[in-house]
C-alpha cells in the first residue's frame, strides 16, 4: 500500500498539490513577491521524502499533511508580519504627510514625501503621484492606493486625503486633523506592542530555571536508582 501511494505521490503529487492550493495562498505569495515555482518544488520533494522516510501508518499521513501545510503557515506568518510592518510604515508616512500638508497641496505633499517614504511604500506612492499629476481629482487613484492590502486604515486615510485634496473644505480639514490624532495614537499603540513583544521573551524564558532543575533532578534520580540496582534486585 505504501509503495502504491508512493508511486501515486511521485506521479501526481505535483499537479495535485497545485490543484489543492487556496487562491488566498497564491495571492499572498504574489503580494510578498515569493517564488511560487520554488515553493512548489520544495513542497513536492518534502512530501515525497516524508512519505518515504516515515513508517507507513498515521504518522506518514500526518507527516505529509504537515509537509503540505508548513508552507501555507510560513507564508501566512510572513504575510502577517508584512502587513503589520506596512501598517506601521503607513502611519509613519501619514505623520510626515501631516507636516507636509501644512505647507503644500495634497499632490505636492505626496510628491515630496516619496524621497523619505518607507521602502515598502515607495513604488506605490510613485504610481499614485504619477496618476495624480495627470488628474489631481482622480478618485480611483486615491481609493485604489494599496487596495490589494484591503486595509481599513489605509482606505480611510486615502478617503480623507481625497476629500482634503479635491474639496479642501473646513470640514475636510477638521476630519483630517481627527485622522492625524488617531494616527498618533496608532503609532503609540504600535510602539507599546513592540515593547511588549520584547518583554514576552522573559515570561517564556522564566521557565528555563525550572526546566533545568527538573532535568537535573530526574538525572540524579536515575543515577541513584541505577546505583541501588547495581547488584541486581535483592528479594
Amino acid at each position, binding site marked *: 500500500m505504501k509503495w502504491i501511494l508512493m508511486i501515486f505521490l511521485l506521479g501526481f503529487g505535483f499537479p495535485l498539490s497545485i490543484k489543492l492550493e487556496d487562491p488566498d495562498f497564491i495571492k499572498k505569495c504574489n503580494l510578498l513577491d515569493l517564488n511560487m515555482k520554488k515553493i512548489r518544488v520544495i513542497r513536492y520533494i518534502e512530501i515525497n521524502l516524508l512519505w518515504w522516510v516515515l513508517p507507513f501508518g498515521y504518522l506518514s499521513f500526518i507527516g505529509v499533511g504537515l509537509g503540505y501545510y508548513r508552507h501555507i503557515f510560513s507564508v501566512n506568518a510572513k504575510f502577517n508580519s508584512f502587513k503589520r510592518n506596512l501598517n506601521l510604515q503607513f502611519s509613519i508616512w501619514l505623520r510626515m504627510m501631516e507636516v507636509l500638508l*501644512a505647507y503644500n497641496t495634497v499632490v505636492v505633499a505626496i510628491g515630496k514625501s516619496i524621497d523619505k517614504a518607507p521602502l515598502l511604500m515607495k513604488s506605490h506612492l510613485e504610481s499614485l503621484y504619477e496618476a495624480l499629476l495627470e488628474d489631481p481629482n482622480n478618485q480611483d487613484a486615491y481609493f485604489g492606493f494599496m487596495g490589494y492590502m484591503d486595509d481599513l486604515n489605509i482606505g480611510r486615510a486615502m478617503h480623507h486625503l481625497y476629500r482634503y485634496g479635491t474639496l479642501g473644505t473646513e470640514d475636510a480639514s477638521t476630519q483630517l486633523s481627527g485622522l492625524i490624532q488617531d494616527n498618533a495614537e496608532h503609532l503609540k499603540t504600535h510602539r507599546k506592542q513592540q515593547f511588549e513583544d*520584547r518583554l514576552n521573551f522573559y515570561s517564556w524564558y*522564566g521557565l528555563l530555571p525550572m526546566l533545568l532543575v527538573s*532535568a537535573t533532578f530526574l538525572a*540524579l534520580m536515575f543515577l541513584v536508582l541505577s546505583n541501588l540496582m547495581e547488584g541486581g534486585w535483592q528479594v
Partner: protein
Amino acid sequence: MIFLLVVSADILDILRHKPLKQAINKRTFHKLLLLFLMLLGFVGLIGRLFNLNFKYLTYLLFMCVLTFFIMVNFLLQHLTMQQKFMELSQFMLKLCIYFRIYQKTHLSVIETLKDAPKWIVDVFDQGLIVSADLYQLSDHYLMKSLVEIFDASETIGMLHADVQLKRLEYDIEVWMSQTRIHQKEAIKLLKRLMFLFVMGIGIAYVAQNMLATSTQIHTHVRYQWIVFTFLGMTLMGLLIACKRLTQPWILKDECL
C-alpha cells in the same frame, strides 16, 4: 565546548573593541574587581556545596570569569545606548524650542550644539548642510519630520510651524517616556529572572542532598558531569538573558 561556542562571538567583540578599558575609571574598576571576586567566591562556594571535584570546579570558575566579563560588556553597551538615546531626544527637544525662538535652522542648531555631547557635535563638524547632518544623526521618523518642518518653515513661512513643532515635541516626549518605561520594565524582569535562576540552584541543592541520603552519589563521575552541566547551563542561561540588554533603544521599525 557548547558554552565556548555560544560566547565566542561576544569574546571576539570584547577583544576587538576593549569596552572595559575605554569606559572604566579607577573607582568603577575597584567596584567591578570587588564584584568579580565576590562572584568567584560565590561560584566556588556553590561548587563546594554540590561537592564538585577540582576538575569540574576549575571549568566552572573559568566559565564564570568569561560570563562576568561578557555581562559587564553587555551592561556597558546598555548604559551607552541609554545615554545616547537620552542625549539625542533632549537634543531634538531643544532644537524644537530654539527653532521657535530663532526661526532659522542653522542658528537653532548652533545654539543647541553649545551644550550638546561630543558625539553629536562631531557629526555637525563634518559638513555644512545642516539637514543632512540631522539625518545623519538619526534616521528615526521623528527626526525626519523635524527636518521637514524646518525646511518647510524656512522656505514657505512660519504660519503652521508653531503648531507642528508643539505636536512634534509632544511626540518626542511620549517616545522618551514609553522607551524609558519599557527599559525599566525589562531590567525589573531581568532581576526577577536572575532570582529564579538562584532559586533553581537552591532547589537543585536540596534535591541532591535528599538523594545523597540514600546512596553515596557525590563520588560518581556521572554525578559530577550532571551537576557541572546544570551549573554551566544556568550560567549560560543568565548570559543569554543579559544579552537582551544590548537591544537598541530605538526601534528599528521606526527608522526610515
